[in-house]
């Protein structure tokens, strides 16, 4: 009557973890939010904030000679128009500046409240003086900065990664546990000989495996599509992701440790995550918030995670140089775990 299944089959931790996986993969929405959404977001932001070439400004002049002088500047394209046509083009915004040749020199017509027009006025001056053979009084050199690593996409990718470490960890833990409690499955599980620690460990194990896939896919995409830099050690980057994911899992466990209904759990999770979405510097630097709330902002786990990710990816810092955010993450892992294990409601 009794049978001895194989060792792998009989490992309850493995069975629990496998079940977590299967249930996750059978929820198309969860798969979308975890794997596809962050990539779509990165693509959208990459398109919106792509670096465009410097604008070439449209100007016009009343004589061909003046037109040629203006067109010699790379920042301007010039056409020849008579005074009346030029005035009309200026009024309708087709050109931002009209150079009228006068017996004594040049008269510029433009709107000085329009920054493009003021730029065109300065460029026109330079072009006309250059054409007249005048030398620049002060030798100056321009160095243009379009460097990889200082673009918005470089800034936002670690932010999105941090956000994506947080969401699935908290939701994945919170919803699944509270649903099991609400449906009395948790009670059924503790009524069986299942070791309780294995139930919680199965969540963390399945999260870590998915984490490897998620982070790999997202960063791989960011590297290929946007050439986002990876200046720090990849091992350390992995370690930061691991620590951040464990802290967020601990926080998810804490939000799920007492709640009896999905509504209560949802409210709690939003309460926990909303301040971090706003304050932790996903889309813009968290240093923009007033000094008075900075201690609070800096103590949030998502702020610490994103600081560490940016430090590693963009500045190439090592873990020793980022001990402060790492210590904050470590504290956010240990304290919520310890508290949740004490207050966890198994039925």
């Amino acid at each position: 009557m009794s049978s001895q299944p194989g060792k792998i089959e009989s490992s309850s931790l493995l069975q629990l973890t496998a079940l977590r996986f299967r249930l996750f993969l059978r929820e198309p929405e969860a798969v979308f939010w975890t794997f596809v959404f962050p990539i779509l977001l990165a693509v959208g932001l990459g398109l919106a904030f792509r670096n465009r070439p410097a604008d070439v400004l449209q100007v016009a002049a009343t004589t061909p000679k003046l037109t040629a002088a203006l067109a010699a500047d790379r920042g301007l394209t010039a056409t020849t128009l008579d005074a009346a046509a030029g005035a009309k083009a200026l009024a309708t915004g087709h050109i931002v500046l009209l150079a009228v040749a006068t017996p004594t020199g040049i008269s510029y017509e433009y709107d000085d409240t329009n920054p493009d027009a003021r730029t065109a006025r300065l460029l026109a001056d330079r072009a006309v003086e250059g054409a007249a053979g005048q030398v620049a009084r002060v030798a100056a050199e321009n160095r243009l900065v379009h460097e990889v690593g200082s673009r918005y996409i470089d800034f936002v990718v670690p932010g999105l990664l941090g956000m994506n470490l947080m969401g699935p960890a908290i939701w994945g833990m919170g919803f699944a546990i509270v649903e099991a409690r609400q449906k009395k499955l948790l009670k059924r599980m503790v009524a069986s000989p299942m070791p309780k620690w294995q139930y919680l460990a199965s969540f963390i194990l399945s999260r870590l495996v998915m984490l490897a896939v998620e982070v790999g896919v997202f960063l791989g995409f960011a590297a290929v599509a946007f050439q986002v830099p990876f200046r720090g050690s990849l091992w350390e980057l992995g370690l930061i992701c691991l620590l951040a994911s464990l802290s967020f899992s601990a926080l998810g466990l804490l939000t799920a440790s007492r709640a009896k209904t999905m509504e209560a759990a949802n409210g709690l999770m939003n309460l926990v995550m909303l301040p971090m979405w706003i304050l932790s510097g996903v889309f813009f630097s968290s240093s923009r918030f007033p000094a008075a709330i900075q201690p609070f902002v800096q103590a949030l786990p998502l702020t610490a995670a994103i600081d560490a990710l940016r430090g590693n990816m963009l500045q190439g810092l090592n873990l020793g140089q980022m001990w402060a955010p790492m210590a904050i993450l470590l504290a956010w892992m240990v304290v919520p775990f310890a508290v949740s294990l004490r207050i966890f409601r198994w039925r």
Partner: protein
Amino acid sequence: MPDAMDKGSRNGSTLVLRNLRKTYADVVAVDGIDLEVAKGECFGLLGPNGAGKTTTIEICEGLTDPDAGGTVELLGLNWKAHAAELRQRIGLQLQETQFPEKATVEEMIGLFRSFFHKGIAVEESIRTAQLEEKRKSRVGGLSGGQKQRLAMACALVGDPELLFLDEPTTGLDPQARRHLWDLVDDLKKAGRTIILTTHYMDEAERLCDRVAIMDHGKIIALGTPAQLIASVGGEHIVEFALHGDSALNTGALLAIEGIGSHRVDAGLHQLSVSELHVAVPAIFAAIAAQGLTLSEFRTHSASLEDVFVGLTGRNLRDE
């Protein structure tokens, strides 16, 4: 029922409850229960909703702590000292467990199998619960009866010596109930000790060797279904109603040979009767002698329902 209690202790009891109490805030859910269940017995806790059946069975299952002073002993062990061993040796099915909708039958049984050091093969458990055709189906696609049989399969997979079933057929349609009864019959034949709760009298009569009737946290009757039914004072129940607002002299009826008791509820008179063929003509005669006419008359075999009504004056399903 002292003789029933003795039967338990002689065979070496599988479950012994002594002075079991459980109080929640101001509600006394279980109010001093003493009980012994023998090895191989199928024992029923019967009572209306709120009688304390589930609290009692969950204390036995180690899910709820009893108030101080009460003791629970299962298989000679107790929850304080031997929880891990007991979890390995008992099987249970709770009242309202919902397994994850997207998990399959096979996966859930395999999961529960992995918790037990020894037990039956997943295959065998699927076969016992007659879920062969549903093996790959997701829980969300199962009928109520199939879900209940899955819960049974998960309870059986550790090959338990003692099995707890909390209202196993509540909410099932009649066919699914009979199907589950057959399954419990098979388990009884295999010699397992089963403790089940139910508020269906017919279920208790059909399945249980012995029954404890519970009301307001107390056991108000204990014995085999036959003993309990005999305690009503007759094997049959006669029910009748009279035309008009007639006053009936019950003394004349109770004087009839073989009539055990009389009660009246909303104009419906009930008599417990041992021999119908003798008593019925006498009842007709007595009513006619009083110048009364019948508007209704029927008889049925006495059931545990009548035991409950006789003891509490209430119907089980009123609750």
